[in-house]
């Protein structure tokens, strides 16, 4: 998947959970990614974060630690 597309998809998820009440948004993003993203996609996301996470919402960067 192109990095732009992955960043776009991950940020969309973050944007939704950001609007939700509570202070566990990062956990919920992580849970969503674990539930719906295939391991290859999560690996690509982790790699992207390791390389600086260009373009990613902070919430995704936080969530990426636990996927």
């Amino acid at each position, binding site marked *: *998947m192109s990095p732009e597309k992955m960043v776009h998809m991950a940020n969309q998820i973050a944007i939704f959970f950001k609007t939700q009440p509570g202070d566990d948004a990062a956990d919920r993003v992580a849970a969503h990614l*674990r539930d719906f993203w*295939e391991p290859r996609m999560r690996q690509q996301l982790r790699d992207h974060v390791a390389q600086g996470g260009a373009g990613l919402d902070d919430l995704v960067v936080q969530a990426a630690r636990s996927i």
Partner: protein
Amino acid sequence: MKDLIIPWDDRDMGTPAKTGAPVTLRIDGFEVTVPEGTSVMRAAAEAGISVPKLCASDNLEAFGSCRLCVVEIEGRRGTPASCTTPVAPGMVVHTQSDKLRKLRRGVMELYISDHPLDCLTCAANGDCELQDMAGAVGLRDVRYTAPAGGQMANHFTARDTSGAANPQWRAKDESNPYFTYDPAKCIVCNRCVRACEEVQGTFALTIEGRGFDSRVSAGAGGDDFLSSDCVSCGACVQACPTATLQEKSVIELGTPTRSVVTTCAYCGVGCSFKAELNGDQLVRMVPWKHGKANRGHSCVKGRFAYGYATHRDRILNPMIRERITDPWREVSWDEAIGFAAQRLRAIQARHGQKSIGVITSSRCTNEETFLVQKLARAVFGNNNTDTCARVCHSPTGYGLSQTFGTSAGTQDFDSVEAADVVMVIGANPTDGHPVFASRLKRRLRAGARLIVVDPRRIDLVKSAHVAAAHHLALRPGTNVAVVTAMAHVIVTEGLMDEAFIRARCDWDEFLTYAEFVADPRHSPEVTEALTGVPAADLRAAARAFATGGNGAIYYGLGVTEHSQGSTTVMAIANLAMLTGNIGRPGVGVNPLRGQNNVQGSCDMGSFPHELPGYRHVKLPQVREIFERAWGVTIDPEPGLRIPNMLDAAVDGTFKGLYCQGEDILQSDPDTKHVAAGLAAMDCVIVHDLFLNETSNYAHVFLPGSTFLEKDGTFTNAERRINRVRRVMAPRQGFADWEITQMLANAMGAGWAYDHPAQIMAEIAATTPTFAGVSYDLLDRLGSIQWPCDDTAPEGTPMMHVDGFVRGKGRFIVTEYVATDEKTGPRFPLLLTTGRILSQYNVGAQTRRTENVVWHDQDLLEIHPHDAEVRGVKDGDWVRLASRSGETTLRAQITDRVSPGVVYTTFHHPDTQANVITTDYSDWATNCPEYKVTAVQVSPSNGPSDWQVDYAAQADRARRVLPAAE
């Protein structure tokens, strides 16, 4: 082959059933008790006595015109018509007497005197009520004959006895491809006119003229059936007691001699049909009156568009090829299956267990779908299974399971009869779900109010005797803002159903939600600027929905196919909970499913993260059930979704695909990306009826069977499991489930199913919501709505009656987020897509029927203002371009679309509407954003380079080598 005639009573009872207090009367000496309001005719039928009739039929209100059904009632004068006379307590009725016989013969004699006596060569011979009634009343003689030299008028001879042209005679109308209208045989019983009005709701027919001059007419003067408003549903043909309106197939093939009850394979309404045959020759499809989804009605697709099953394009032999640039080679089944299995295993050996996957079909049966996902999970050893529901209703699954706890509509279709306010959002039922639309229109004519939320002025907004009270013509992509603004009005004006919310929902979550939604940024006055919906209209619609009685919401792909598709589904669920519109007849949240088995394919575990019954693969206790049943280990990680498969293919980690009954190259967004993904694979197996677009990139082609050729079940939008019954042998040798089994076994599976009933037994044993389902029970009940288990042994027509499946209903905050697909100077218009009545999905089936007379190409609808500034005239070729690609098609100028919005359908492969759509998708499910694409339209001279190249590639890819001797 076994002829399956279900032992249900198919008799015509004469007039519709009524509900009411019991009334007891005597008919011909028999005592009978019926509900108040029942006609004497129907009461007699209940007692097993048929009164002769011509103008009455139990799906139409009584009309009382033929006077054949006269009876005598003790204590009453004269001979009243039994179809229009309601029963009364203690009534004593006689249906036979000398006087009645004489009257009836007189009536028949008059009819027959103006009717051609060519019964032996008539297409309705043996299937004609006029003939039956002539027999029933003992007509032996017709005293009126035309004198030589002309004079006596009739309707059926082209010339009178003097040889002069008969001014009363009209030629046959053969304009409709499926039926004829022969005015010479019409007895003006009005049944067709009433069927078109009451059953179909189109009002295309009228009786023109009076007395002897009166006759049936389609449309206005000068129209024939084809040019009139007629939508070719066939209700009038079914209603006609004579050969006046007659199926062309019956004219050609003769009257059918046996019938099998089965289910339509087109849309998610799931109409039941009697397939009527001679031997294994299908003669006609007649909607089955006991079908609980359709109640004896159908649309043009289900009734007439089955010709694709015998179309010459159908592929009947398996084919393989080394490379996609080679021509196809016809081979034996063994060779094709062996080739496919060996390639898939070789790919896994080289690229890993997760390098292959499957796509199940929403057009195939539950049993077939179950096997295909089982193939991935138990044989491939991964969860790479997805279904085309990904690209239509996956947000429904996510959104409703988050809020209510289950991924399905809450009601049955009968429920609409109790609705007072109906909100239709992002759906176009008269085109997409026609039989549901007819039932909805009937309710609207009886007084229910309608709210339409759609960028386009769909037919429901204004059509014969139906008009929407409110049409919110929003800008594509702003559903969440509109629905949330409706909730804002309801909460801030105190119109919510607090008792319901307190009893049924999580109150704290409601308070958080109420605070969120009450914020002035969600008020219609503020959102008007982005949605384009006038605040006053939105307020009025919200008030109507909240206070108008039973409120029912029906929605379609205009809700789901957006970046915020899942959020909109949740917003809709919020609205229903807020107004207490859940858990009784006439209310609810009802997704209208596109293809026949979208619901079923989702239920059957097609999604990569869920085992059958919507249970996540991460749950060990769920995996254990299947691990025990199948003797394998199931991967606990979610697999790839369709767009992810294509991405992984382009990346080189996904190399093999078994695609059953879907045409992803035509139906999925961003065609160039799909083509690149397919081209990057080493083994694409297409299992389909035709060499579809995807097969241009395939290495193995496994010919599929049609719904007429196999046993199984489909589950419609009401969660109703309907039987599909084999009416003829598969033309290419095997039912689709057998083909999947052969492939699995060639890969070492060792499956041994010999009938789909065994597959259903496995589904029931592993999936709690199907625990009570079996073919025996289906045969007994006709259909079953899941959940079906010990607590609901005959299924569940309505869900969440006393509590939500998840316990307390959950309100979820639904913040509007603008899609990133934005208009700008390069792409200033918004394209949205949809479909049309006569065509189905990618059109593979319907394009191969006479339905093309109604829609032979996709058109681009554009507002006159947008057309004018671009110099585009009606019918011109235009170039349609987005950031993904460009295509050309013809323009249709109409104010159905608002300025700034253009619209097209995607039924024809040469249009390539999906070259234009982008890779944006729903945040939660990756359901593509088909409904919003920023585009530009400009005049053009003809097909784009891409279309020309594509057509050339497709021609090359479809070459088949002549069979070796």
